[in-house]
């Protein structure tokens, strides 16, 4: 006889695990920006996240499209400079994501070792 799953329905649905954020590069970009609320230049962000120009541009446009970051193009000492900053809505979504992520890890920690390993593999953000 099959054992019935414990807990309530949808207990492990983790619907708050935002797909826009749940990607390794975008998670790096948002983590860098949320810990630097005054913003980071494109070059600083590129170095912090170990991304190429093209990759960072692509991920930034996804985040900008989702209204999670704002990109300010200006000049510093007559040289063009792009500054990226997290928006209030991006900040809120990131914190919500972090709460769900923490729940997933806690659930995994409560589970048997083999289940925990499987959950951890599932948890690893995707590479776009």
């Amino acid at each position, binding site marked *: 006889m099959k054992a019935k799953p414990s807990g309530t329905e949808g207990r492990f649905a983790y619907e708050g695990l935002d797909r826009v954020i749940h990607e390794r590069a975008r998670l790096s970009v948002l*983590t860098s920006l949320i810990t630097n609320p005054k913003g980071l230049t494109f070059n600083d962000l590129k170095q912090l996240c170990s991304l190429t120009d093209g990759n960072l541009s692509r991920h930034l446009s996804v985040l900008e499209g989702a209204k999670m970051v704002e990109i300010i193009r200006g000049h510093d000492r007559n040289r063009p400079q792009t500054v990226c900053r997290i928006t209030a809505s991006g900040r*809120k979504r990131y*914190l919500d994501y*972090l709460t769900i992520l923490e729940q997933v*890890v806690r659930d995994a920690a409560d589970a048997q070792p083999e289940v925990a390993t499987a959950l951890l593999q599932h948890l690893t953000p995707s590479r776009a």
Partner: protein
Amino acid sequence: MSFPIHPLDKALGDISSIRRQVARTTEFHGYGAATLAATGIFAMLAAVAQGFLVPDPANHIGIYLRIWYATAIVSATLIGMQTLARTRRIHSGLADEMILMAVEQFLPSVGAGALLSIVLVRFVPGSVWMLPGLWQITFSLGVFASCRFLPRPMAAAGVWYLLTGLTCIGLGDTRALTPWTMGTAYGIGQLLVAAVLLWGSKEDANES
């Protein structure tokens, strides 16, 4: 002997560390202006009560201390309860980290003020007149310590408490125990804090 850290514990540690970093760069909206203003009014009422109950505070220091301890306890309880509820509502994702930081910033000054009272009353009773000044100075240090996470103009409240504290000490005798020294300092000081909270914040209070 060291034990290997489980990957899940490391992941939880990383999440917690990100939260702490975010909390460190977030303006704290847990203190409510109305509650802080109410504690200023409590201080003024306590000063009025002291005027009636202890006309000669230098010779009835026990009653003087009881009046101000009671005011401090009622005010701290009210602020504590409201801050907990408000922080959970406004900083939902960061509530625990923000509350912990607020306590870490302010508790040392409160603790120092309480210990100063015990030491002066027990071992140096002749210097008890310094207590109001010392309370205000230690309180100002708590305000300054909290300034980084509060609206910038909050430093003015710290300066106010520092100046009133120094003025009390400058009186040099038991005149520092008269009702107006505490009533004016905390009455106006807490109203100033409330005004800064109400009008000094630049960020949206519903942000995290």
